């Protein structure tokens, strides 16, 4: 080693010299490691984290910004807004803002962005996940005032518009773009497929001038390599590293990722159609034992399918205790009443749904077996898993305990309640008329009343129906290099505002 190390250092110094000197010259440039690279950089796809983490609020901005901490909305490209009729909203736009291509930010740009997003020729996620069904249209009142109209009353239109990225009128309609043109503090510079995306600071930005002048995004799917890149100074921030690589408390910071894991129960199929059996499953899983072992100790026990940052989250629900004896007693009662509790139940998992998810289902299956359930464990590949997750459900399917992970980073429970629990919801096992009515009504309410009704929706699902087995609100680990002063939050599940980065 005495001989080889200096030799290797000398050779490296010669070969790597251009790289390091370039880095040293640019003290306000950052390199960010993502777990996966983008497939396109289209403004209408920013709700997808693989795209949003690069361009949302950096290159392209939204009219409205979500404040996850206070569960509310903040002005961004819109200065103010008001609901002028149940199906009408008027937004006042910020003046003096220009796009990176020099065109002005005005009502025409907003209309263009909405029309482009709603174009059926594209499957923009902003439309398919958020705007679909609202039939939202925009019309110009004057150059800096836009009126939005919807088919029916949409009390959370500002929340929905927090997903609509505004791009220049020169962004082509009917085709995806790989060169986003926005109004943000950073301009898109270039994208080398499979290697990197580079953004540079826009000197014409309407807001405060950010400190960082250049950001290079690279991607490594192997978590230990991403972590090593930050440790060696090759990168400044690694978005998502595995819990086993997060070993340095100084650099490795945990943040909620807005994912909630749970087991959905096929409540119509015996023996799971008996509420005692469903309660027994909840009592038989020792959730606490997973925390700090195969699930991060920073994850939180879940009582519902949305996290605390979502309007409608019910903070009054109490976690199920781990009580295998009570579980056995409930099963015995059910058996005595003729319920076939010995029938085989399929537990369905999906490899890599979250870190250690395979180990998790193995252990959970064993916990259920230990109180008397007959469990057959299957780990399905994504496409097979989706087939089972979505309606129409197979007619001859077995009773099942189905592992899912739901991601609600929209800030509102509407995106969970209908889809997961309404009779017409694509992934709903329930058909409870009262619950359906409550879900629909909650969707038409605003403010405190809305939160109150969604609270009741989640209470009924959890306490009265016992529709599922809520497990954990999950977390991610971010490695932040020593050069940066940054603490991640739940917003970083889908975006990272470069303008908020500070240097130490």
């Amino acid at each position, binding site marked *: 080693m005495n001989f080889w190390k200096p030799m290797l250092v000398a050779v*490296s110094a010669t070969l790597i010299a251009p790289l390091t000197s370039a880095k040293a010259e640019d003290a306000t440039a950052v390199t960010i490691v993502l777990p996966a690279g983008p*497939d*396109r950089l289209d403004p209408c796809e920013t709700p997808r984290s693989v795209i949003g983490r690069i361009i949302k609020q950096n290159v392209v901005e939204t009219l409205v910004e979500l404040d996850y901490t206070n569960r509310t909305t903040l002005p961004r490209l819109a200065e103010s807004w008001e609901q002028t009729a149940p199906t009408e909203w008027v937004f006042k736009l910020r003046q003096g803002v220009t796009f990176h291509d020099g065109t002005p930010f005005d009502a025409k740009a907003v209309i263009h962005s909405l029309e482009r997003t709603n174009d*059926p020729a594209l*499957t923009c996620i902003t439309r*398919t996940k958020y705007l679909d069904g609202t039939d939202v249209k925009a019309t110009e009142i004057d150059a800096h005032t836009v009126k939005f109209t919807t088919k029916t009353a949409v009390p959370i239109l500002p929340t929905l518009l927090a997903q609509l990225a505004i791009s220049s009128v020169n962004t082509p309609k009917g085709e995806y773009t790989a060169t986003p043109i926005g109004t943000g503090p950073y301009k898109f510079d270039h994208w080398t497929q499979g290697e990197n995306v580079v953004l540079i600071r826009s000197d014409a930005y309407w807001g405060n001038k950010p400190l960082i002048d250049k950001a290079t995004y690279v991607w*490594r799917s192997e978590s*230990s390599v991403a972590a090593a890149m930050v440790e*060696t100074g*090759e990168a400044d921030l690694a978005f998502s590293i595995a819990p086993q690589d997060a070993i340095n408390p100084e650099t490795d910071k945990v943040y909620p990722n807005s994912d909630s894991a749970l087991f959905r129960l096929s409540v119509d199929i015996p023996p799971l159609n008996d509420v005692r059996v469903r309660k027994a499953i909840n009592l038989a899983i020792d959730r606490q034992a997973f925390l700090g072992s195969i699930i991060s100790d920073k994850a939180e026990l879940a009582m519902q399918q949305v996290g605390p940052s979502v309007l409608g989250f019910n903070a009054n629900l109490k976690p199920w205790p781990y009580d295998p004896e009570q579980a056995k007693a409930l099963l015995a009662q059910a058996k005595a009443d003729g319920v076939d509790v010995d029938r085989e139940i399929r537990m369905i998992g999906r490899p890599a749904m979250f870190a250690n998810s395979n180990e998790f289902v193995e252990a959970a299956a064993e916990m259920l077996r230990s109180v008397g359930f007959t469990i057959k464990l299957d780990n399905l590949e994504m496409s097979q898993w989706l087939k089972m997750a979505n309606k129409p459900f197979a007619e001859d399917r077995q009773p099942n305990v189905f592992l899912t992970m739901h991601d609600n980073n929209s800030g509102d429970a509407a995106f969970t309640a209908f889809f997961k629990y309404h009779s017409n919801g694509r992934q709903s096992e329930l058909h409870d008329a009262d619950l359906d009515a409550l879900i629909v009504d909650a969707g038409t309410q605003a403010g405190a009343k809305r939160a109150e009704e969604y609270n009741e929706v989640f209470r009924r699902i959890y306490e009265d129906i016992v529709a599922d087995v809520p497990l954990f609100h999950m977390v991610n680990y971010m490695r932040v290099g020593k050069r940066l002063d940054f603490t991640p939050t739940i917003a970083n599940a889908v975006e990272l505002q470069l303008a908020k980065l500070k240097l130490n």
Partner: protein
Amino acid sequence: MGSFIFKRSLQSVFSLVVLIILVFFLARMTGSPADLYLPQDASLEVRNQFNEQLGFNDPLYVQFGRFFWGLLHFDMGQSLQFSRPAVEVVLQAFPTTLTLAAITMPLVLLLSIVTGSLAAFRPGGVFDRLASFISLIGASTPNFWVAIVGVLVFAVTLRVLPTSGTGTPLHWVLPVAVLMLRPTGVLVQVVRTSMMTALSSAYIKTARAKGVGSRAIVFVHALRNGLLPVITVASDQAAGIVNGAVIVETVFGFPGIGKLMIDSVMLRDFAVIQAAVLVTALAVFIINIIVDITYALVDPRIRYS
């Protein structure tokens, strides 16, 4: 030789067509891309729209006809994930893999031929034992593990190499070293065995009796005869690398075809799967032709007329 290459090309075209047909139908048996590309809560209307636009609502034979017609016009379709022509996506990734293979294979051949030959020269000697031991470890150690340990040792602890990525020659050191490990391990064993057989032949004994030097016996007389099985195994290993050094590409963030293929299978990006299979199959076909020609050059008894 010309007619041989022509005949082989015809056979290969037939194999390629069968392969393409198989890949087309097998890929479509794995499920609809709509579930993977649209949000899980997307409406039925949006799903239908998606399938309609991309032609997935048409019967399979109609889809195949469209694909085959496109193929005849050198059009492999659009990539679902990248919204660009699939061929363009594949051809952008292929040079990285080819470069990896082009650097790795000559080094593998050089190292394994020299090591295997020297090991065979004194079977059972210290060098032979050491070479056999190390080559067995090389052939049997998982690439994935070696790659991660390589990053930890050379990039994180010693700080003499970059962790991953491309850019400078140093970025290629770890990936190439990891990629060399298995083929070198296998080939050292093959060279050693093949050379031991060659070295025990009567003509070698004659050469020794005539006083020919050891170096000339090993590297001139025995090696040429011992090379035939080595060429066969080496071509197999090279084809493996051209098919995609998936693990190396994944760990080191190399934008090669192996990772592209895996990602495309996971995302049901049919056009890219088909284009990638076609391009790599063509490359393997070319490697096989080169191997056949090399056989003829190495062994004068082989003639393809």
